[in-house]
């Protein structure tokens, strides 16, 4: 027994030693920045993609000889749960060494934590959550967001739908704030354009079977099924539409703009619509650069829809720190006057709420297993037709 004890205490001692080494290895000009996202649970794919992208931004910056500081990325997991989010947010904000952070994919976690960031005067840039309230409920200098809100998204969505000439839409949304918000704003926008919502169905995020809802929808026989929710159930709903022989256009939100959606459906994904804030990454000069470097890093998850935003957010933070030094107050001031700033998601301009107002919305349609920008798709040119498209 005592031998075991000795061994273990040895391990312990050496652990302490290593710890000490790491501690002493810290150079003077080291600066900590943070990332928070869902690394476990149902939407962890997006969280991991976002983390990798932020990590990439830091790596590239550290590789850059001109950089004034050496950056260390602190990553925390909000599990897409508000209570956990409040905890980790407090942890990060309370850690004086961390200057700023790119935070949150899930709206519920972002909305729960903004007060924490404000309380601690901790500058953050939301990289994925789309609920308007996050920036607009209160006027917090600390809180920014590179991606647009779901309002812009749904305006664009409704516009395209009615432009194509669809009049009757059935809505399915998950009962999280994300889905409910989308339902609300899309229905408003579509009604304004004279469209008709023939039915609205809330579904729970862990639901597997949608045949009951879809059968009802089939009876209502809409031209379009609008889906406000994330990839996992998006995939299920689309494939079950097929099971029931429903021939309607599947019209998704930013939540399904992910490689996972296409992998999950294969050919069935063809002709699905989706919308995402920001200019299409691959079209921007630095976007290509991002894609290439991401690939070079051999991460085991793709960046997913919001990886680019996470990268952009982190880049903005690093730029600011380079400019004004590792000081929260200064960084906040600096972020306040971000105007017309080029990024891999297009120009970024923060309004007085820290919201990026350059809400370039990209319209996507799935064509041959890829998310193709609508305007360059064969659907726009009329070469191919969506079901029911004139």
């Amino acid at each position, binding site marked *: *027994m*005592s031998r075991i004890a000795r061994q273990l205490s040895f391990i312990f001692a050496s652990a*302490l030693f290593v710890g000490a080494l790491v501690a002493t290895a810290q150079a003077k000009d080291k600066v900590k920045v943070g990332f928070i996202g869902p690394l476990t649970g149902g939407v962890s794919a997006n969280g991991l993609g976002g983390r990798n992208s932020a990590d990439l931004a830091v790596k590239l910056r550290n590789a850059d000889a001109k950089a004034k500081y050496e950056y260390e990325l602190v990553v925390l*997991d909000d599990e897409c*749960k508000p209570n956990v989010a409040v905890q*980790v947010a407090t942890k990060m904000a309370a850690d004086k060494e961390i200057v700023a952070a790119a935070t949150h994919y899930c709206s519920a976690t972002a*909305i729960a934590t903004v007060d924490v960031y404000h309380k601690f005067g901790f500058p953050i840039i939301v990289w994925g959550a789309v609920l308007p309230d996050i920036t607009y409920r209160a006027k917090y200098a600390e809180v920014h967001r590179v991606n647009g809100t779901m309002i812009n998204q749904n305006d664009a969505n409704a516009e395209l739908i009615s432009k194509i000439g669809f009049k009757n839409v059935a809505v399915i949304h998950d009962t999280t704030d994300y889905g409910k918000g989308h339902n609300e704003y899309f229905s408003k926008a579509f009604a304004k354009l004279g469209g008709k919502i023939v039915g609205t169905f809330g579904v729970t995020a862990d639901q597997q079977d949608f045949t009951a809802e879809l059968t009802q929808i089939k009876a209502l026989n809409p031209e379009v099924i609008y889906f406000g929710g994330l990839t996992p159930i998006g995939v299920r709903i689309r494939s079950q539409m097929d099971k029931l022989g429903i021939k309607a256009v599947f019209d998704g939100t930013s939540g399904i703009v992910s490689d996972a959606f296409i992998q999950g459906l294969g050919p069935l994904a063809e002709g699905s619509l989706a919308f995402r804030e920001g200019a299409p990454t691959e079209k921007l000069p630095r976007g290509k650069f991002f894609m290439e470097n991401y690939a070079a890093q051999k991460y085991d998850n793709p960046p997913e829809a919001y990886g680019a935003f996470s990268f952009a957010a982190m880049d903005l933070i690093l730029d600011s720190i380079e400019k004004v030094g590792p000081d929260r107050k200064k960084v906040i001031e600096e972020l306040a006057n971000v105007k017309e700033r080029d990024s891999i998601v297009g120009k970024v301009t923060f309004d007085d709420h820290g919201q990026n107002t350059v809400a370039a919305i990209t319209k996507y349609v799935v064509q041959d297993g890829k998310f193709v920008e609508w305007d360059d798709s064969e659907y726009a040119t009329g070469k191919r037709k969506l079901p029911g498209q004139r």
Partner: protein
Amino acid sequence: MSEVMQKLRAPLLPGVVALALSTAYLIALLAAEKQPLIIGLLAFAVAAVLAAHYLGWLNLVSRSFADREDVLGVYAILAACVVAAFFHDNHFVLLLFVTVLLYTVATLGLNIQFGYAGVLNFAGASFFGIGAYTSAVLSTYTAVPHLLVLLIGGMLAALIGSLLLLPVLRTRGHYAALVTIAFALLLKTFLEVNDVLGGPQGMQVKGMSILGWSFNDNFEIGKIEMSFYLNYFVVSMLLLTGTFVLVRRLERSWIGLNLDALRLDEIAASCFGLDIARWKITAFLLGNFLIGIAGALFGMVGGFVAPNNYTFADSLIMVSILLLGGIGNPWGLVVATFIVVVVPEKLQTIQEYRILLYALMVIMMLLFRPEGLLPRPVRRYYPRWQA
């Protein structure tokens, strides 16, 4: 234990030493930031406990706790205050600490239900949530004094819990398990789809304030800046102490005996005059009441409530705390709560592998020490009482 060992009163020293060591260790662990250091500390803890176990020291400790609880209890409170003082300006650690205290209160409630009366409750987190939502609603829309809010939170949890009384009383074993599991699932979905209480987005909770003293502002003692969480620490500590004493007295009373009797053999118990229903109800309501109070306070601490804070999974965590600690032993619960709340948090940097590790830990625990860390000793109404 032979009668001789029982007669001679257990020495105080082992308990005090154990308390001092664990306090020091706790401070070290909470303060540790570097991953290797943390892992080292954890490994060390495991080794130390194993060693103490083989050397028979754990027995000494548990005996001195069993016999000299009165004194050691006070020391334990002091120890907690020392830790809090050490981290007086560290918001996060204090938040973590407060979380531990309130989870302990909640699991003490579960302990009355399951540990004593044998009434399964897989909806612990739900009743915790009912408390939290109560304080969210009351602190937002009314001016009810906040201490009263806590009380109402508890009562509401008990009240809503009483909707389940009929099935809970009629069912046994796994059937009873289903009742609370179903309740946990439906309550979460309900809160999510029903917008009155903020829907999936949840609600903000106003910080606590008593007699104009706002709990959410940092304050200073002398020249030293104090974290506002220190306020919550004080209240939570009081709440925990009160609950602990209550549960102890309950166990060491005829009521505790009744609950044990009905848990162990309902038929025999009812043949000796025990009104099964009455005592099951007492345990279930009292338990939920305590859980509700803890939840109400936790809501104010977290400043935010949302449905998926209170899922079935969270209820399971509470139940696993109960098993890890050693069913029926309040001290065990305190230890187990620290482990379950602090360790996964400390392992943040293993990120996506955390949950996997946690599950494995519980499995190992159940396999190799199914009776829990500190098994419940046989009831002594007055530990040091001699006929």
